[in-house]
Each structure stands twice: as structure tokens, then as C-alpha cells.
């Protein structure tokens, strides 16, 4: 036998309190006599311990103590090992992705049906420990190793689906590993409206169905190549089994265009909507239909236009370096260091007190980095080949004919070297973020290769974190949305205008609802479009397949347990009734002596 809540057994110590109180209780039996003079002043009995003990062990007190012990034992939920009835551990993975918000013909959402299914599973397979995972692209533990079935049911009732995308199988296995891993469960049930292409052995699938859906499966906006206006592209999906006449309206914030179209059953249709003169940044596409998941009938897109890179140049100009930076993004030369995103120091000496993001090209920082004499060099070798500054570069193609032998601070990371001398290095101090290129550009083959603009892009991405190309991808609810490249963040608002708390790094956030978020930095206000993942519109979407060999197998050694608490509770009740009757009889018996 085992106890689900063994700590409750500590309440058993309360019997000592009851015994203590019983000792305090007046224990005098009342006996009426005809003449007190026969009793007064009798020799007192000091040796009748047996009678004292008998008095202590009066049946009512014994019944009370037994009742307490049984009650405490019942509260501790004792379980008796058995060949049937109760599992050792049960995991229920309930799909809480956006598609589970689809309403069904019963008037309940798929998630509501999934919760009912989960309760049925609890009923048919009561377990010693039950865990429930609310599963989506951001899985979270709804109930962890809970022994009380009522608590699990309450947690299920209180839960709700998200607007997140469906989670991956890896995500599910990771979530299960947080509570011991797939192999630690006797039964794992996955309740979803999807059709997973493959599930590990040991995971049972319960499928929820119902509801019809039409959706905007894709929506994006591109600037026209001419530089004038934009074009919106949309894909309409008809998930029903009949032809549907659909009205699509696209809005750029200034004007809107409506299009009517007929979409075949179980088919998609793509269309382009031109906005020849639009300079809008927030675009909305909306389907005018009635279906069971209206949230994917509206899609948002924020046209994130590129920002200028503000550069302060110190030292003689270099047209190769200028051209490489200009190839990355538009560059604006500024005079003040506090206005600059990046300070380029070319063949110059920088004071040690200078702060900010710095690109040192054949330059020095007083007391921090010095160059030394030039020496002949040969081929270049990557010391830190995984460094982001080398992304896209071929170090073996770079030639350095001569370079100095620099003295760098201890915290500097050497990325490229030639003949043991650092060629490319980087370091970060409290006030400075420095990328150091030792040789003169003219003494290398960089001006003639594609590696210089790639290096410039990587430096810009590292130092100022500006988005190099425009990002036309959607941001989905529940997935990390990058906030970098837009300056120092001061505020982020959700579609309802409420401030969103940001993680400490301030570089990303996880949106909870679809819509247009507004990011405010010192460089302006930027719209961020967040949509329900398009995969949620397709109820036949499958979660990703997993490598069967990588999947753990569920154990077949099931342990079953029988709940003993109901029996103990009934026995306790009977004992309490017996005690009441005994007390009643005792109170009846007294008058026989005392009349």
C-alpha cells in the first residue's frame, strides 16, 4: 500500500491532542447513594491503576481515536496495489492550438470537446499521478503529477485554447520529458484536431472533429520593383466541401480594394491586389464569410521598410569600405558620436573614452589596442570559424600581404589570423563594442572579393542589428517575434493598445493574440503584424513526423492501484455513528443511578 498524499498522515498526530483533551476532561462518574456518612473520609484507593487505565480507555474515546486515524488515512488517499483499475502515471496532451477554437455543430468548440475527452480518459484510467500538457507551439504544463482527479478536472475546466500554432513532436516530447519523459508514463493520450503523420509508439491519438472553415492561407505585400506603390498577394482556402462565393477586402490604411471570387471545395485560390500609389505600412486582408473559425478570415501585414545606417567616419575615407557598407543598407554620415549607429575608424587613433559600436580598420584605441609594425603575411586561417562575423565568408580565399602585429585587450576574440597575427578580432567592454580589422584594406584582396560586403553586412548585423533585407515572413501568435534593428525600444503595445511586458533582453517577444502590434523606439513607431498561423486554418494539417528510431517506447509494465479512501471514509462514518449511539446510551444510563 502507498499513500498519494503522505504528508497528510502528519495530521494523525492530532490523536495526541484528542488524548490530551480526554485527559483534561472531567472523568468523574456520578453515583448517588442513600447516605453520604457511610462514604465520607474513606481510605482512598491509590493502587487501582487498572481502573484508571480502564477509565482512560473508555469505548467512546477509543472510537474517537480510531475515527481520527481512519479519517487521516482516508485523506492521505491510500492506494492498494492491484491487478487492475488504476494506472501509476497518465499523461494527457491536449491540443490548444488556434484551430481548437473552431466551433462545432454542437455549439461547443473543439477544445471543449477535447476537455470532455480528457475527462473521459481520467474516468476510465484513474492514475496515481496525472499530468496534463496544454500543447501548442508554446506548450505549457497544465497539471503536473497531480494525484487528485478533481484537481485535474478543475484545471481542465479552467483552461482555454490559445491562438498559437500547433506544436511540433519535438516540443511534445520535450514537454513530456519535463515530467519524466514518455517512457515514465503508463498511458499517454494526445487529443487533437490534427492528423499527425507519425506518433511514437505508446502515444494514443484521440481526434476531435467538427466545424467548417474558410481562411486567408497567405497574405503578403511587396514594394513594386519600380519603387512606386505596392502589391498585395493573398491565398484563399476553402476548407468546406462545396463551392463558396467569397468577398475579399484588402486595406492599406488609406484605401481598400474588394474582390469577389468563387473558390472550389477543398481548394485554394491565389490572387494579387495592386496598390499602385500606396505608401502604407499596415495592410489588412479580410474575408467576408461566416464560418466556424473567424479569426483566420482577417490577416495583417506590416511593410517593414529599411532604416538608414547612421555612420560617423573618423580618419581618411576609403571607397571600398564605403561601398561595402552602402551595399548593406542606406548609409547616412553623421558628425556627432551620440547620433551614430556605428563609428568607422579608418587608419586613425581613437581616445579610450569613446563609446558605442566601433569598426576599427587598421586603427588603434589609446591604451586599449595598438597596431605595431607591418610584416609580410600569407594565407588567412579562421580561428573561430563559427563566429557570426564569418557568416558567408570563405576565409581561405582571403589573402593578406602584410599586416601589423597588434596588441589587443585580453577579452578580445581573434577570429581570423595570418602567421599567428590577428587579422580580424572583436571584443566588448562596458562602453564599447568593437570589431577590429588589422591590415590596410589595400594590403589585402578584400576590395576585389565578395567577402568585403559580406563582412560589412555581418559587422552591421552584429553592431547595430539592423535587418539587412526586408523580411516578408509572417509573425505568428506564440512564436518569437524579433524586435531588433529598430533602435532603442521604449514601448510595445498589443492590438488593444495595452503595453506588453518585454523580456530583459528586449530583443523579442511572444505575441498572444493576432493583430497589429506597435513598437515605439527613439527612431519612431513600427507596426508589427502578427497572425494566427496558417497551418491552423487547415484542420487536416499534421504535426511533423518524427524519426521512429529517435522515439522512446512506452513501458508495458503497468502498475495498477485501488483507491482505499472511500472504504476508509465509510468505516469512519460508521464509527462516528456508533460513537454517537454509545454516547446516547451512556447518557440514558446515568439517570438510573441519579434518578
Amino acid at each position, binding site marked *: 500500500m502507498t499513500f498519494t498524499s503522505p504528508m497528510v498522515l502528519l495530521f494523525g498526530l492530532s490523536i495526541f491532542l484528542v488524548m490530551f483533551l480526554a485527559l483534561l476532561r472531567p472523568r*468523574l*462518574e*456520578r453515583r448517588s447513594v442513600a*447516605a453520604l456518612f457511610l*462514604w465520607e473520609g474513606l481510605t482512598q484507593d491509590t493502587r*487501582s491503576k487498572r481502573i484508571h487505565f480502564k477509565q482512560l480507555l473508555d469505548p467512546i474515546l477509543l472510537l474517537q481515536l480510531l475515527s481520527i486515524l481512519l479519517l487521516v488515512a482516508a485523506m492521505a488517499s491510500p492506494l492498494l496495489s492491484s491487478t487492475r483499475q488504476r494506472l501509476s502515471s497518465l499523461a494527457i496532451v491536449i491540443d490548444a492550438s488556434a484551430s481548437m477554437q473552431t466551433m462545432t455543430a454542437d455549439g461547443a468548440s473543439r477544445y471543449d470537446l477535447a476537455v470532455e475527452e480528457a475527462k473521459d480518459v481520467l474516468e476510465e484510467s484513474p492514475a496515481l499521478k496525472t499530468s496534463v500538457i496544454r500543447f501548442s507551439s508554446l506548450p505549457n504544463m497544465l497539471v503536473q503529477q497531480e494525484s487528485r482527479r478533481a484537481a485535474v478536472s478543475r484545471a481542465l475546466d479552467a483552461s482555454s485554447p490559445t491562438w498559437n500554432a500547433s506544436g511540433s513532436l519535438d516540443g511534445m516530447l520535450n514537454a513530456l520529458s519535463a515530467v519524466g519523459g514518455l517512457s515514465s508514463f503508463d498511458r499517454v493520450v494526445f487529443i487533437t484536431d490534427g492528423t499527425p503523420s507519425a506518433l511514437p509508439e505508446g502515444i494514443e491519438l484521440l481526434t476531435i472533429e467538427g466545424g467548417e472553415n474558410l481562411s486567408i492561407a497567405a497574405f503578403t505585400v511587396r514594394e513594386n520593383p519600380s519603387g512606386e506603390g505596392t502589391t498585395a498577394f493573398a491565398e484563399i482556402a476553402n476548407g468546406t466541401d462545396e463551392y463558396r462565393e467569397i468577398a475579399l477586402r484588402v486595406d492599406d490604411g488609406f484605401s481598400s480594394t474588394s474582390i469577389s471570387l468563387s473558390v472550389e471545395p477543398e481548394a485554394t485560390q491565389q490572387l494579387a491586389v495592386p496598390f499602385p500609389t500606396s505608401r502604407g505600412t499596415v495592410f489588412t486582408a479580410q474575408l467576408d464569410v461566416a464560418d466556424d473559425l473567424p479569426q483566420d478570415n482577417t490577416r495583417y501585414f506590416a511593410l517593414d521598410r529599411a532604416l538608414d545606417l547612421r555612420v560617423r567616419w573618423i580618419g581618411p575615407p576609403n571607397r571600398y569600405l564605403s561601398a561595402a557598407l552602402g551595399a548593406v543598407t542606406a548609409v547616412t554620415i553623421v558628425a556627432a558620436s551620440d547620433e551614430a549607429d556605428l563609428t568607422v575608424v579608418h587608419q586613425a587613433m581613437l581616445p579610450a573614452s569613446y563609446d558605442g559600436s566601433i569598426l576599427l580598420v587598421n586603427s588603434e584605441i589609446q591604451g586599449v589596442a595598438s597596431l605595431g609594425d607591418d610584416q609580410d603575411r600569407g594565407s588567412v586561417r579562421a580561428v573561430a570559424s563559427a563566429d557570426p562575423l564569418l557568416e558567408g565568408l570563405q576565409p581561405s580565399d582571403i589573402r593578406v600581404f602584410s599586416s601589423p602585429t597588434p596588441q589587443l585587450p585580453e577579452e578580445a576574440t581573434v577570429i581570423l589570423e595570418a602567421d599567428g597575427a590577428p587579422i580580424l578580432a572583436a571584443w566588448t567592454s562596458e562602453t564599447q563594442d568593437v570589431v577590429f580589422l588589422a591590415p590596410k584594406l589595400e594590403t589585402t584582396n578584400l576590395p576585389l572579393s565578395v567577402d568585403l560586403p559580406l563582412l560589412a553586412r555581418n559587422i552591421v548585423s552584429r553592431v547595430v542589428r539592423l535587418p539587412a533585407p526586408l523580411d516578408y515572413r509572417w509573425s505568428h501568435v506564440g512564436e518569437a517575434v524579433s524586435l531588433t534593428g529598430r533602435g532603442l525600444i521604449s514601448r510595445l503595445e498589443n492590438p488593444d493598445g495595452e503595453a506588453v511586458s518585454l523580456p530583459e533582453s528586449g530583443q523579442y517577444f511572444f505575441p498572444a493574440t493576432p493583430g497589429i502590434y506597435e513598437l515605439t523606439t527613439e527612431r519612431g513607431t513600427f507596426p508589427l503584424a502578427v497572425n494566427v498561423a496558417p497551418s491552423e486554418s487547415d484542420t487536416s494539417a499534421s504535426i511533423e513526423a518524427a524519426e521512429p528510431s529517435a522515439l522512446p517506447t512506452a513501458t508495458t509494465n503497468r502498475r495498477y492501484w485501488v483507491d482505499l479512501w472511500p472504504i476508509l471514509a465509510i468505516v469512519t462514518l460508521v464509527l462516528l455513528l456508533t460513537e454517537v449511539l454509545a454516547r446516547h446510551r451512556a447518557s440514558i444510563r446515568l439517570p438510573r443511578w441519579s434518578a
Partner: protein
Amino acid sequence: MDYLLDERFLQRLSRLQFMTRGRLGGRLSGLHVSPRAGMSVEFADYREYHPGDDIRYVDWNIYGRLERLLVKSFIHESDLPIYLLIDVSASMQLGAPSKIQYVAQLALALAHLGLHSMDRVGVFPFAHRLLASIPAQQGASHIRRVYNTLSNLDAHDETAFEQSIMGFLSLTRETGLTLILSDLMFPTGLEEGIARLLYRGDEVVVLRILAPEELDPKPSGTTQIVDVETGRFTNLNLGNTTLASYRARFEKHQSRIQTFLEEQRVPLFTIPTERPLEAVIFENLREGGIVR
């Protein structure tokens, strides 16, 4: 309370009658020898003639022979007043069945016995004083009043024995057989009360009725001992030692009563309530010479 006595028991009672050691003076004719000369056929004695005597009783044969006027006297057979003094103090409510119940049944049996043998029977309940009583009367119909009185006895109040006896003596003028039915659980007054009765000339019989738990109490641990009459109490640990001490004190009390009564030639019968009435009457009282 069912005080009815079964038919067989009543028939057996009918064959009995009270006995007295001396001659007690009843007013009516009965089956007992009176101290006065009477009109029965049984010769008693001769005495000198005095003017006014009935000349029918002059023995003329003696006068002819001796020339003395002598008058014949005969034994007077009179009835016997039976006085049932019943203790109804609160202490009589103890026991199971209670002592008052037992006493009421015993008194009913004694009353039936007395009335059936042409005696007059009176019932005199007492506690702190003599209570409403039934004067001694004769006749079968009197048993109804006796029954009603006995069936309504209610034990309460303290005992004042001597005062009650004084009340009894002032209420009754004739001497008689006085049966005291009591637990005698009072510390004082017994000797004085009995002495007053004996002084008047009553023949006294004491029936001491006790509950079994008074004779042999059981151990019960720490107990509050409450006097039902006074309400006073004491706390005792009733173990074997304490109870042995109680029994010794009870025996001493019993011995004091017994010694006094023996000195006064008053028979004492100590009867536990568990003893059957038949055994009390046909064994104890018969062997004790109270009935025959």
C-alpha cells in the same frame, strides 16, 4: 408500577397471620388474645366481685361452697392493629428495582396478610415527617385504599425518623404491631424513635430494605458520590481498597443497629431488593416468628 401480586401468592398469604409476643389491645374482635378480659368461651381467671359487675358471671357454685362472691373472667380475643411505617425518603429511590418499589410491594403483601386475618392495617409513609397516612382499618374493602396509597408512593426529602415516629404516635392511640420498612440510612434518630414506640407498648419489627449495590458496591474509578437526600457529595477513587473500607463502615453501621435492636428485643430483617417477596414472607418472617 405494577404492584399486583399473583393469585397463587395471595392464596398462600391467606394461610398466614401475624404473631405477637405479647398481648396487644385491639378494639374490635379478632383472632388475637387481648390483655383485657373478654367475652370469648375460653376461661381466664376468677376475681372478687365488685358492685357493678355483671351478676351473670358470678360463679354460684363457689359462692355455695365458700360463700365468697367470685366473678369468672374470660380471655378477650381482639383484632391486631398492624401499622406499616414506610420510609419514603429520597434514599428509597435507589436501586433497580428501586427500594420504594420493593417496599410498596412488600407492604401490600403484608397488608393483604393482615386484612385477611381480620386485623386492622394502617399505612404510614414518612420522610422528614409523617406524611398523609391511612388509619388502621379492617375489612377486605380496605385493601383498595391501601393499594392506591402504596402505588402512589413517591420517594423524596430527607429522613427525620424520630420526628416521624412522634407524629405516628400522636396519630394512633392503640398499641399494635408496628412494621418499619426502611433502609435505615440515617445516622441518628433510630434509637430514639424505636424507644418511643416501645415505650407506648408497640411491638416493633424492622424490615431493612437495601439495594444490592449498597451491600456490595462495584469499583468504578474516580467517582463523585452524591447523597440523594442532601445533595452533598464527595469524590472518591472507588477501587478495591476504598470499597473494602466502605464495607467495613457499613458493617459497623449495621452492627450498631442490630445490637440496639437486639437489646430492645426488636427483630431486624435485612432484605436486599433482589430477594423474592415470597422468600421474605415465607422464610424470613415466618422463621423470625412474625407470621405463622
